[in-house]
């Protein structure tokens, strides 16, 4: 059994490598992903081993990356596009929303779009403007897309392979500030399904939902809460479209309280949808409204103010307190 200790970034790198070995139709495309190996080195070494036809350093234009990916997909390829930073996905949004997301329905299933859009997302790395965005809600609101946000090396390793192997377009969100976090990854395990949420810590008092970078934050909050005798159940949503709320519903029916955490602006962030759905499903079990902890409704601030912008352990606990106090 091959178990390795991998960072999240390295797990993605290995996952991409394995996907490329498994299927010669997999083509990686993006800015600086070849010779440089990507600004986060997620594609490190892949161009050397698979050649320039399969790891394509593109011209500098995100619409071009996604638009040509559509064409490659129509020709039978499985393009995996890297968007260098979250804030630079917007030039590609026209292709993603009007083409990638719609082509299967447009063609009544004759044409499929096995395109993966990898986006390092979220803040917390002290970066300049546009490098710390959390654009997931734009995609999760768009019918035709699937959206995944991994939180750990194991899901990163398997998730990227599953996303690539799947027949539908996937916006694959990578928590950039967790790229250097490590875990043991069993490279031969049977992976969990890509589109499912998972209870990552059991608890009884409040159900805390998170995804991507905030899973660690939620777990830290649960640890701290335990010290004060409060028991939080933490769910890693893993998939944002489709949302897998079954484990959440089961949990909330038990706890009666729910807090959702994400970095994206709270207004119309994932928390909004989750709150609406959970309230509908668990109406009679809820002791308090579903509370949301998110980024404030302001443009992501300069790096030296981001600590006050981002949800942290304390803000999660504050929401837990408010939920308990209802």
């Amino acid at each position: 059994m091959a178990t390795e200790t991998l960072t999240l970034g390295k797990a993605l790198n290995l996952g991409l490598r394995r996907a490329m070995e498994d299927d010669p139709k997999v083509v990686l495309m993006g800015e600086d992903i070849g010779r440089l190996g990507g600004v986060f080195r997620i594609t490190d070494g892949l161009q050397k081993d698979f050649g320039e036809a399969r790891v394509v350093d593109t011209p500098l234009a995100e619409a071009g990356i996604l638009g040509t990916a559509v064409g490659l997909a129509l020709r039978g390829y499985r393009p995996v596009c890297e968007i260098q930073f979250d804030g630079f996905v917007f030039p590609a949004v026209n292709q993603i929303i009007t083409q990638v997301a719609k082509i299967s329905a447009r063609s009544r299933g004759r044409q499929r779009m096995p395109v993966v859009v990898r986006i390092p997302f979220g803040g917390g790395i002290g970066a300049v403007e546009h490098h710390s965005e959390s654009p997931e809600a734009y995609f999760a609101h768009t019918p035709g897309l699937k959206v995944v946000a991994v939180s750990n090396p194991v899901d990163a390793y398997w998730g990227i392979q599953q996303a690539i192997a799947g027949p539908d377009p996937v916006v694959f969100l990578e928590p950039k500030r967790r790229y250097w976090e490590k875990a043991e990854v069993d490279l031969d395990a049977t992976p969990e399904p890509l589109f499912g949420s998972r209870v990552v810590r059991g608890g009884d008092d409040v159900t805390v939902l998170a995804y991507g970078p905030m899973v660690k934050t939620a777990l830290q909050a649960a640890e701290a809460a335990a010290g004060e005798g409060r028991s939080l159940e933490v769910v890693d949503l893993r998939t944002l479209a489709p949302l897998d709320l079954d484990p959440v519903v089961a949990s909330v029916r038990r706890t009666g309280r729910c807090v959702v955490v994400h970095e994206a602006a709270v207004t119309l962030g994932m928390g909004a949808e989750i709150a609406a759905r959970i309230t509908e499903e668990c109406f009679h079990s809820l002791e308090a409204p579903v509370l949301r902890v998110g980024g404030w409704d302001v443009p992501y601030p300069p790096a030296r103010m981001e600590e006050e912008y981002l949800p942290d352990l304390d803000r999660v606990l504050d929401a837990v307190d408010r939920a308990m106090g209802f």
Partner: protein
Amino acid sequence: MSTLPTEVVDPVPGAGAPHLPPQPGLVQLLTPEGQRVADPTYAVDLSPDELRALYRDLVLVRRWDTEATALQRQGELGLWASLLGQEAAQVGAAHALRPDDMAFPTYREHGVAWVRGVDPLHVMSLFRGVDNGGWDPVETGFNLYTIVIGAQTLHATGYAMGVQRDGAESAVLAFLGDGATSQGEVNEAMIWAASFQAPVVFFCQNNQYAISAPIERQSRVPLYQRASGFGFPGVRVDGNDVLAVLAVTRAALAAAREGQGPTFIEAFTYRMGAHTTSDDPSRYRLADEMEEWKLRDPIARLRVYLAHEGMADAAFFDGVDAEADALAARVRRGTVQMQPPAAETMFDSVYAEQTPPLAAQREQFVAYQASFEGSH
């Protein structure tokens, strides 16, 4: 308010005030009067059968187009984007394609669809609002229509990159309009195609207008010159001359197949109808202009040539007309009968692997619809 040159722009030769003598630099093999002329670079040598086939296609697609416009007026279509005047550009370009080539149309390439063997009813179903075009893009080598201006040029380029990776000797033809040349994505497609020397040919039908915007709003210089800035050849062809279009497109596709990279073709033509049936061109263009362009009709000149050369007689022409009427009748009959698929099918091809929430929504929808059965 000093220098506001919004409309005082350099004339694009032949656009504002078209005159019959061909423009310098315009490839032409058949004059508006039906005379075969030579071009220093481009030639075609077609058999009488091939020439008659071209003529037949021109007449048939025009007849279909006329019928479609009529059907829209009668409420049978939601909309129609007429190709009137652009038959030669489309039929000529399509005849240059080989079966293994791939075409990426806009929403107006009914003539290309026809030549690629797409059933006209599949095009009608889109404009009737029944679906988004029901043909098989793989079987026909003709992608679905793309309505977001320019998006398909990137698809074509990416597809051509796939052709390269397959080591195939196919080429890709990307259609676009003159207005589309202003979209960033179209320019990116040209940058990509140049950078990767992708086997794609950009076929721009400059029909002088993007809805109401005259070509001068998009470019002060002839459009075909755009390509040189990206490092590949551009050529302007008389878009109403089916022979010239065929010759130029064939050459460009051959170059693409041989690894010489992209070409930009500007087919200089004119939209004789409205932009679509929703449009009122009298608001932005003069009748004179249309009168001048009528003299350059793409079908008339081929007819004159065929007749004059004795390659076709009255029986042939009558036969084509009869065929055209039969096609129109078939299109009409098929169109008025078309019904949308069951509403719940809208849930079925959003994903290849259906998601549980959407499956649940579908169930909810079906149950809700069923609750009305018998009631209204």
